[in-house]
């Protein structure tokens, strides 16, 4: 099934994230990732949600969201016309013998080591989800201790902003 990314512009009201999340849960829609933060205008927050589903599911989700009084605008972010990134911190076991190998994987993926100790190191990587998945796949064999992913953030290419859609 297709991976969909939508940006939902919401009024920065108390409880709005709970409302949106409650709607997803109640109607049985599965969210893959959900990020939320204030926009350039403090009156509004932007929720970026990714989910799998065909057009019927996507349309239902968008229409159910549009009904909510706190939702101001929804943009569908198509792969070809948007940039999407995810930031991930990965803590792996440190291993003297394999250090060279680990470092070269980190290099190739332009990841960074942000914490280093004899027992473990923490790597930061940013990119599209496919790149991150590939990186995790490679680094797995060195022993992942824990992972923290931000979920996807995404902006439309070009000069427009989502807030400019408000009438």
């Amino acid at each position: 099934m297709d991976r969909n990314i939508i940006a939902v512009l919401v009024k920065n009201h108390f409880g709005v994230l709970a409302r949106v999340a409650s709607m997803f849960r109640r109607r049985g829609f599965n969210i893959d990732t959900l990020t939320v933060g204030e926009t350039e205008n403090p009156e509004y927050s932007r929720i970026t949600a990714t989910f799998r589903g065909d057009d019927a599911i996507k349309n239902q989700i968008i229409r159910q969201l549009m009904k909510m009084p706190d939702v101001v605008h929804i943009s569908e972010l198509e792969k070809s016309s948007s940039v999407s990134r995810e930031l991930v911190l990965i803590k792996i076991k440190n291993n003297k013998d394999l250090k060279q190998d680990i470092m070269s994987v980190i290099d190739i993926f332009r990841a960074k080591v942000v914490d280093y100790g004899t027992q473990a190191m923490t790597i930061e990587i940013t990119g599209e989800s496919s790149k991150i998945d590939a990186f995790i796949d490679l680094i797995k064999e060195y022993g992942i201790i824990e992972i923290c992913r931000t979920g996807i953030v995404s902006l439309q290419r070009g000069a427009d902003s989502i807030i400019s859609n408000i009438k």
Partner: protein
Amino acid sequence: MKISGAEILVRTLIEQNVDVVFGYPGGQVLDIYDKLYSHQDEIKHILTAHEQGASHAADGYARATGKVGVVIATSGPGATNLTTGIATAYLDSVPIVAITGNVSCPLIGRDSFQEVDITGITMPITKHNFFVNRVSKLADTVREAFRIAKSGRPGPVLIDIPKDIQTSLCDYEPAEPVEADKKNAAETGIEEAVRLINESEKPYIYCGGGVITGSATEEILALAEKTDAVIGCSFMGISAIPSDNERFLGMQGMHGHYASSMAQHNSDLIIAVGARFSDRATGNKSKYAPHSKIIHIDIDNAEIDKNIAVTCGLCGDVKLTLQKIIGAVDNKKHPDWLSEVDYYKKEEYRHIVKSDDMNPVNIIETVNECADEDTVIATDVGQHQMWAAQNCKFSKPRKFVSSGGLGTMGFGLGAAIGSQIGSGAKSILITGDGSFGMCLNELTTASYYNIPVVIVIMNNGVLGMVRQWQTLFYDKHYSNTVLDRKTDFIKLADAFGMKGYRCTEIPDFKEKLQSALSGDSPVLIECLIDKDEMVLPMLPPGGSMDDIIVERLGG
């Protein structure tokens, strides 16, 4: 001059033309009740026996009038007692505003005495809700709540007001009552809909509750006339179309009229208006209307393609959208279709066995004879509800008040009281012995305020609807559906200060009902009926028209 939050609330309600509220006091709404006391000449407060009854009364008031119903409850248990009523209103798209008190802001989140997170609890059963954390926002929040409740597809809105907000002082600027958002016809899809209608040989119009909410009766009749269509309705669409209209086949679906369900099943085009294709209306979705294209007109865009994928969806006000369509479609005649439908009607009558017994159909027909066109018929939930839905006759919309989407037993008495107060006309409640047990505390309300509701209990001694399923699908294992409660409903009526009668024959029932309707007080009439009566026809759950049960099975 600065006034208190409680005063602002009451003044804002008056500003919204609210003249009656239903509710129950308590610690966290004392300030509001104090202001209701000072404003009692402008707003009448109806004290119910239970907050649930108050919520159903506000709902019944709204269904019967089209106005926003208002209910007030205290924090904690008062608020949680509203939830069944709020969910009932939500599933049937009824505009109510529920106001709850809460503990003062500094006490919120500390599990204080009678604190519940009612905005959290009601998030999935309200159209929207508000927690007011500043008195300066109170008046506008109330206005916004009314706007949301009545705009677009209506629904319940809850406002939670902490006690310190009620006592804080603030300036108050009066305002005009808020209006519902402007209605618009669908912008896209009209041409395609017109083409589909012109191409159809067997059109069936399926009216939902949206036809009543959107006041589109005339347009439905005009469209049917112009395109030679027949008309059916969902449970929520009952009373949208005058029962005596010759194109009208009645309710379709699980307990729908045979002719209506058959016509829908064999149509080549279903024009669904303000309906939502609930599972009770469609049966097995994969076998629903196999030969039909579907046009769906609804003000709620999210309903389109939600339950049934349609050929042509139009999002807009149903009345305005229908007007556009009516203007553009061709005049048609479909004599073959109408004679096919006539055949279904004859088949339907063939299954009806007439007698003079005290049976459910005769009871409802007696109600039809005694009621006038303004009488509101409210029901509870169960077999009696379906008998009423199938057989009650209406000539005006908003005269059938019943919990469709949630199927709330215990809805009836509160709703009958609310709809009587709203409409000013008589209300008849058709209830069952089981359902009545869930709301009979509201007899106090009917009695105290001398509200002319006539309560007709179809006493079959059983939880008939559940028992019917046990008969048909659970090998007659009558688990907990036989009520042997020894309740004497006549003594009960007496205890609550009203007249009560027990009837075992139709002529006696008719006489009692007529005299009850000519009086000005609540009256209870118990009708004894057989426990084995069934609601037929029945489409078994998950079944299709091929599985329809039309006759009582032997034994």
